[in-house]
Structures are given as C-alpha cells and as structure tokens.
C-alpha cells in the first residue's frame, strides 16, 4: 500500500511538470489554433536565462521574472517573424514554420552555448518530507503549486479581463473581431507574450527540478505536454492540467505495476482509448467549425 501511494505521488510530481508546460501550449492553441511546436524550446531559452541570472547571484524570484520577460519578448519576435507572415496561409505552412522555429532555437542554442548540460546553483532548500515512509520533496510542492496558480491566473485573464475578451473574440472570428475594433495583431502578440512567459517560468522550474539545462531539454517534455493538452481537450486551460496529471499518473502506475519496458506503449494505448471514447479530450467541448 505504501508503495502504491508513493507511486501515485511519483505520478503526481511527473504529471504536474507536464501540466505546467501544457497550460501554455493549450492557451496559444486556444486563441489562434496554432500548435506552437517551439513552445518547448522557448521553455529551454527561459531555463538558460534563469540559469544566467542565478549564476550572477540572483535569487529564485528575480531569476524567474527576468526569464519570463526575456521570453515574452522572444515570443513576440517569434510570432512576428515566423507566424504572422503565414497567418492567412494554410495551417500546414504555419505548422512547418513552427517546427523550423523550434529547430532554429535548439541548434542555435547548441551553437552558442554548446550541447553541454549545465546545472543550477542551489536556489531552493532541498528538503525531503517523510510521511509514514512516503517521501516527497519541497520542489514537488513548488511545481504543483505553480501550476495551480498559473491555471487560476490564466482563467482570470481569459475570462475576466478586457484583453481576455479580445483573445476569445479573435479565437472565434478574426475578421469579425477586427470589425468590432479589436486590434487583432496586438491581441495575438499578447497571447504569445503570455504563453512564452509561462514557458519561461516552467523552464526555470524544470531546470531547478532536474538540475540539468541543455539545448534539447524542451523537446520531449514539449511533446508529452502536447499530448497532455490534447488529452485534456486542447484549448482548455484546466483541461491541460487534468491531462498532464493523468498522463503522469498513468506513466508512473504502468512503470510501477506493468513494467517499465512497455511504459510508453501502454500509457499511450490508454490515452488512445480515452480519445476514442471522447475525441475532444476530457474537458474539451465540440466547437462548430466556422463555414
């Protein structure tokens, strides 16, 4: 029983990492229906910026804030250069451009900073709590807590602010939104800035969690987070969180009780089953296609 609870907890901490990334992913998709494959790489850039700050002697909070700021700018530039010129082209062209942007960031970073794995100095007390033999680390709480705060914060922005209203309007119909006096370009830029800032926060936290920062660090978590976002219902912010945690728990339990050799195969088979029953994802709602 103790082992089972430890496994659940392992899954929760893994899942909250997926969730943290998936939240930013799903928001950008929700607004402009673009799968931003460079999201994981913006996360990586954020981790590097945070690392630079931390090495310069700053604490956790300033490091995260500066990383978020730098990545927000990066996100806006990325949107301006790689996505905006293709906004009226086919969906596939934008997707290809996103993959290009992703590769550019990965290998650009590799060329500048070498593929070496770097590690954060100690920013957090590495304390481990022991409840009846079940062990949990401080940083697990940190990741889960941050994800929860971000979900609430994003829900607030999207549903309670004017900018959020503009985002939702743009997501429904760009042309109608423009006729209503909404500046579509700047609304999309804000969306990217926000999504990239979230990625940066996730990047710094993941860098601290694993104590490893390297140019390809965003690749696999980015893909898993994408799956988590689809599972939760892409475009739905609480859905991304649920999807992430579900994916993490499935992986942990399959590893723990099925066999780690087949983990991804079994975990993804379960996910496919869920999507077969509910194609829009767990919390997704069917949106009528515009004609």
């Amino acid at each position: 029983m103790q082992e089972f609870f430890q496994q659940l907890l392992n899954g929760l901490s893994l899942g909250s990492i997926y969730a943290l990334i998936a939240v930013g992913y799903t928001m950008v998709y929700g607004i402009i229906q673009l799968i931003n494959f460079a999201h994981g790489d913006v996360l990586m850039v954020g981790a590097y910026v945070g690392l630079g700050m931390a090495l310069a002697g700053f604490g956790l909070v300033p490091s995260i804030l500066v990383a978020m700021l730098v990545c927000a700018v990066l996100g806006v530039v990325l949107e301006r250069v790689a996505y905006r010129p293709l906004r009226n082209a086919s969906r596939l062209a934008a997707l290809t451009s996103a993959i290009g942007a992703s590769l550019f960031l990965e290998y650009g970073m590799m060329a500048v900073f070498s593929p070496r794995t770097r590690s954060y100095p100690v920013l957090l007390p590495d304390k481990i709590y022991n409840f009846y033999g079940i062990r949990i680390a401080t940083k697990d709480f940190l990741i889960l807590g941050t994800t929860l705060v971000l979900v609430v914060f994003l829900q607030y922005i999207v549903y309670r602010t004017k900018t959020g209203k503009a985002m939702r309007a743009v997501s429904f119909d760009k042309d109608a939104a423009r006729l209503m006096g909404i500046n579509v370009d700047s609304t999309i830029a804000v969306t990217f800035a926000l999504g990239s800032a979230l990625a940066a926060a996730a990047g710094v936290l993941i860098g601290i969690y694993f104590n490893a920062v390297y140019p390809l660090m965003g690749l696999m978590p980015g893909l898993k987070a994408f799956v988590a976002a689809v599972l939760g219902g892409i475009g739905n912010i609480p859905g991304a969180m649920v999807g992430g945690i579900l994916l993490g728990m499935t992986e942990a339990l399959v590893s723990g009780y099925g066999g780690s050799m087949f983990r991804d195969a079994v975990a993804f088979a379960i996910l496919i089953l869920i999507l077969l029953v509910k194609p829009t994802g767990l919390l997704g709602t069917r949106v009528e296609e515009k004609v």
Partner: protein
Amino acid sequence: MAKLVSSRKLRYYALATAVFFLLGVLLSGCGAPQKQSEAEKIKIGINYELSGKVATYGTSCKNGVVLALEEINKAGGVLGKQIEVIVRDNKSDTAESVNVATQLASMGVVAMIGPATTGDVMAAEPVATSNRIPLLTTSATAPTVTFDEEKNKVREYIFRICIIDPDQAMVMADFVWNNLKLKKGAIMMDTGNDYSKGLAEKFKEYFEAKGGKIVATEGFVDTDTVFKPQLTKIWAKKPEFIYIPAYYNQVGLIVKQARELGIDVPFLGADGWDSPELVSIAGAKALNNTYFTNHYSSQDPSPEVQAFVKAYKEKYGVEPDSFAALGYDAGRLMAEAIKQAGAADPQKIRDALEKIKDFPGITGKLSFDEKHNPIKEVAIIKMVDGKQELVTKLVPKR
C-alpha cells in the same frame, strides 16, 4: 491523369542525370589511392563528433589525438616525416560521418582515427573498408564494430582501442562479488540503447554465473527525466546494489532521485558515467557510495599518466577524461603502427596494427585479439565527495 513530365522536361532530367554521373566518376577518380612516397607529410584523418549531441565525447577524443600527434611531430615525426592532422566534424550524425570519411579518403589519408560512438563508426566503416584505409576508433564499444557477427568475420580495416562492453560487465561482476561481497542486486537500463542493454545483459549473465541474484530489472528511455516510479518498484524488492549501465545525464538524475527516495545502497555503472557533469547533476553527496568501470583514471599515480594529465591540462585547461586518454593512446598507437609498417601505406599500416603487442598506452598495456579488440585492464573508480578515486585495476578473465 495529366502527363507527369513533359518530353522536354524529360530531356533536361536526362541531361542533369548524365552530368551528375559524370561528376561522380570524376570525383571518385580523385578518391583513388595515391602514391604517398613523394608526399612530404603523412596525412592522418580525424573524424569526430565536434558538435551535436555527443560533442563532449568527440571533442575530448580529438583533443587527445591532436596532443599525441603534436608531441610526435615535435620529436621528429615518424619515418623522418611530419604528420599532417586533418580534423573534420561529423556533427554527431551518421550521414555526416560517411561524408567526412569519404572526404578524408579522397584527400589521401593513410589512416583514420574516430568517430567516437558505435553508430558513427558503423556509418564510416564501409568507406574505410572499400578504400582499404585502416580506421582506429577510440571509444565505440559494441562488439559488432570490429566483428561482423552475420558473416562471422572480422572487419579487416577496423580497430578499436577501448575495452569492449562485455569486459566491463565482467570486471564489474567480479568486483561486486569478490570485493564488495554483495549477492543480490537490481539493474536499471536504457531500453532504447544497445550499449546499455548489452552491458545489462552481460552483467546479469556473469553475476548469476557466480551465484549472485538479480531481483529486478527495470528500463527507461533516454528522454526520461523522472525515474521515481521504477526506483520505487526496484526498492520494494530490497536489492543490495543497483547497476545502471547508462550515460551520465540519466545516471545523474537517477542517483539523485534514488537518494531522495531514501535508497542508500551502492550504485554501480560503466564508462558512460565518466563526465564532470555527473557531479553537477546528481550532487556530490548523492554520488557517495557509487562505483563504475572505466578505461583509465586521471588519479592513476603512474608517471606516464601524470605526464599526460599535465600536458593536457596545459594545452586545453581542463582535466582529461577517459575519452581524451583514449584519443591520446590512439594517436600514439597509430604513429607506432606507421613506424613498424616502415612505410606510409594504408595496407602495411593495417598489417602492423594487427601485430601490435603490449603497446604501453596510458589506458593500459595493449595487444589486439583476433577480433581487433584490445586485451587490457579495466579501472574501477569510486566517487568520493564529488571526486573520482581509483579503487583497483582488474584484467577481465575471458
């Protein structure tokens, strides 16, 4: 259906194809072995992973080779000639590795050193073999690199300077059983990696042959970052040690997370652990009570090793890892083979390499067996507060 290609276009295609083939013939003509006797310098080609995902391995190897060959040039070269070192980057990419090897062959090198990893060597192998140029790899450890198991035939032009994986597994099994006196262990391996799977399999075989028991085997993939589920499962089986034959970036995370879960038994590993990054990822404290097999130790007190460590540090400003040491031995061994061949001729160098006996390398005294694998001792290294310490050196009892 519309016609796919108009007849006019077809003509262009035909012309383009003809030009292409013509160029191919011309270029391959350049690649034919040239007479070296008139050349002033002996050309050795260096094909390494200087960028891309295993750049740290390739760069260290290259640094070692270059250091060795520079020293030899300073001492007068070989056969009265200077050695020209041609360095090329294969970007940790198998296709690039083929390109580099082809390019080097066409430049008239008498021997190639590198690449560092099994995949890249296997890609360069057909080029070396078809051009009849000996290829010496520093660190590709899979048996198939020098021996074609399908044809049951040694790959004539391929040699390696590092110990092969089964030797590492055998020495570690010996060490656990005889020195640490542990009887019950678990294995964690990278299921997507032949290096890791091969070591795990051989270790289990040798350890169980001694009467030991492997109570759990768990896997992961190289992109994993959370290992607690597997570790929790393994720990429930109460092993006395855990063997992780994998690369340092995964090992660092695994050991760190294991200690967080309260797993306090020794962790054991292989040469993939050897990187300064291991300590920064896992933390010095978590790595206490861990051991791994390696090609050499920079802590080895022998004067040859210490002279190398000093020269390397002076030139590059960092402590040489085992890849650098293997590179250094590869450079010196190749020069020795050219000397014994008596001529800068690829075929004669190949024959000389095969006859090398007890070459005094800093990674151990080396002779080649009939499969072009070296027979030499393996170092066992212990991590103490973030520093490597040499425990012992054992010769595999094959």
